[in-house]
């Protein structure tokens, strides 16, 4: 190689993601490199502060992994390209490729210092998830954020999202965010949960069998009750208004199908709003590697299919944590542990991976935690009538500023799938590559064309899993 900035190195095991699943996988006794996009380990669930003076907990497994001499952490690093063969036609083959048919996994990693290519013998994908947004009028106003953004700002940056806010949407994640904001001195105008409260309460009694989760849930609810925050069930934030930032949100009661009712709307004055609808697994790298996926029965996303050893359909590729199904930190840790043991066994013996007896403990824990996760998953469906709160001029795609009316125009003209809408309207074609608008668009297209979610396609496949400059592409080409 002459001018190229891209160096290739071999690794036994690369773990993508330093959250609970990735950290657990990395600790299973193999020389391993862990790659994470954030400047510190922990992922979204065990988020660590970027600044000093922010109160935080560092869970023991994370502590141990950070002290482990066999684990190399690459921070602020992103796998931008993954392939079962060469990542780029122009890339110099690695030294081991002589006599090797190129079946080796290749990961192109982008860091501040440049690009590098890793050629691991096995990979554990622990890429986590991002939040599901559903558009509503005014959701692009500054001050409207996701609950995860409010949480990240608080935990990593020590900054409160506002003085008066509302936490809204659906799912168990709203409670810890609300509690954390209260702890930070933020006034909560309301917590708004789309499910009727009796159903949300039933889901909490469902996790009572899992004492750690139950204790956590009870703590959050107690915090919210003590602060006398109104908890509004069966309702949703259906509009945000303000001149150049959010000044108020409009809350509507939902009918049994989840469509907003015109009567009894109420306005709350806020300086910020945290609205989120659960999570979407980040499956793009798994998809790039050809791993089989399974459609979620009722939410607009897929999960990576794994066997009881956390092995995907592609040899040497394992998956753990949120990308195999949204389950939280306990599920992710157990899956990561099994995936790490199975990957170690695969590297040692080849052939079918066996996590072995040491995985019996985590497997038992996993079964229990998955039952609780499945209960929560079923208890917080998306309200099927949500597109009814959209107006013609509501932004559907934030990057390309595509309005909902443009989407319905092409659907009315006979387009029946997500990629067709993308091609006609540019919805999903901007900077974020459909990360924000894609799942909502999939849901909206399915609902409007009366098709199952699995029939309308999605925008979750991305050749590049992160930003890459044209200059960087030419670096690859010059290699």
């Amino acid at each position, binding site marked *: 190689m002459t001018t190229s900035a891209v160096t290739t190195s071999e690794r036994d095991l690369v773990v993508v993601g330093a959250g609970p699943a990735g950290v657990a996988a990395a600790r299973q006794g193999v020389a391993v490199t862990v790659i994470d996009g954030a400047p510190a380990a922990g992922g979204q669930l065990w988020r660590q502060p970027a*600044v*000093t*003076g922010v109160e935080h907990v560092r869970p023991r497994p994370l502590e141990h992994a950070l002290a482990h001499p066999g684990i190399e952490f690459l921070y602020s690093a992103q796998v931008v390209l993954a392939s079962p063969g060469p990542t780029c036609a122009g890339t110099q083959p690695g030294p081991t490729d002589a006599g090797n048919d190129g079946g080796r996994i290749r990961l192109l990693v982008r860091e501040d210092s440049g690009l590098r290519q890793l050629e691991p013998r096995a990979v554990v994908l622990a890429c986590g998830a991002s939040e599901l947004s559903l558009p509503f009028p005014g959701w692009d106003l500054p001050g409207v954020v996701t609950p995860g953004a409010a949480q*990240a*700002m608080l935990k990593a*940056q020590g900054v409160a999202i506002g003085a008066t806010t509302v936490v809204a949407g659906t799912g168990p994640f709203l409670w810890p965010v609300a509690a954390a904001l209260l702890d930070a001195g933020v006034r909560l105008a309301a917590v708004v949960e789309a499910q009727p409260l009796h159903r949300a309460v039933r889901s909490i009694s469902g996790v009572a069998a899992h004492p750690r989760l139950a204790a956590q849930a009870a703590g959050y609810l107690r915090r919210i009750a003590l602060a006398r925050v109104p908890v509004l069930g069966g309702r949703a934030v259906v509009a945000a208004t303000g001149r150049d930032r959010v000044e108020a949100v409009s809350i509507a009661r939902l009918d049994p199908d989840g469509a907003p009712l015109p009567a009894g709307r109420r306005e709350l004055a806020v300086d910020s709003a945290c609205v989120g609808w659960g999570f979407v697994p980040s499956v793009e790298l798994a998809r790039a590697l050809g791993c089989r996926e399974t459609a979620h029965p009722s939410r607009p996303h897929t999960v990576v299919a794994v066997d009881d050893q956390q092995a995907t359909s592609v040899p040497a590729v394992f998956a753990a944590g949120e990308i195999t199904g949204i389950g939280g930190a306990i599920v992710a840790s157990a899956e990561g542990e099994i995936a790490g043991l199975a990957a170690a066994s695969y590297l040692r013996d080849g052939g079918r991976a066996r996590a072995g007896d040491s995985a019996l403990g985590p497997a038992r824990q996993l079964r229990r935690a998955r039952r609780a996760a499945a209960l929560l998953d079923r208890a917080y469906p998306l309200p099927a009538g949500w597109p009814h709160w959209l107006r013609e001029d509501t932004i559907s795609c*934030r990057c390309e500023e595509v309005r909902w009316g443009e989407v319905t125009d092409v659907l009315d003209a006979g387009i029946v799938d997500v990629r067709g809408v993308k091609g006609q309207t540019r919805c999903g074609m901007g900077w*974020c590559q459909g990360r924000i608008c894609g799942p909502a668009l999939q849901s909206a297209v399915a609902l409007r064309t009366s098709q199952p979610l699995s029939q309308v396609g999605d925008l979750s496949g991305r050749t590049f899993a992160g930003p890459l400059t044209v200059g960087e592409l030419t670096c690859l080409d010059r290699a």
Partner: protein
Amino acid sequence: MRRPPAEPAQISFAFEGADVSARPGQSIGAALWKAGVRQFRTTRRLGRPRGLYCGIGQCFDCLVRVNDGPPVRACVTAAVAGATVAAGDHADEHSDSGPFDKERNDKECSDNECSDDQRT
């Protein structure tokens, strides 16, 4: 002058001419938010204000420019002392139409933030 021990150290940068202070390691986005700035840029098509949205580097709403560089995501870019930060408006206009400049190209190799599907 010595600060009281509870007070974390501060650095500062300029955003659109105004002085903004940040804690070491803090993201530009968090520092702006703390300073009361909610609008980080204006959109290309409809001229709408945008700030932070997802907070974890997914949405690209919070684009700003640091020291006249290409747009970067304020939520995942650490503040640099003394930097000049500008709104990430009209991000598309930053295209190099001049002769090939290797030094600049190599620099952008490491610090540019563009998507693979950007209009020119």
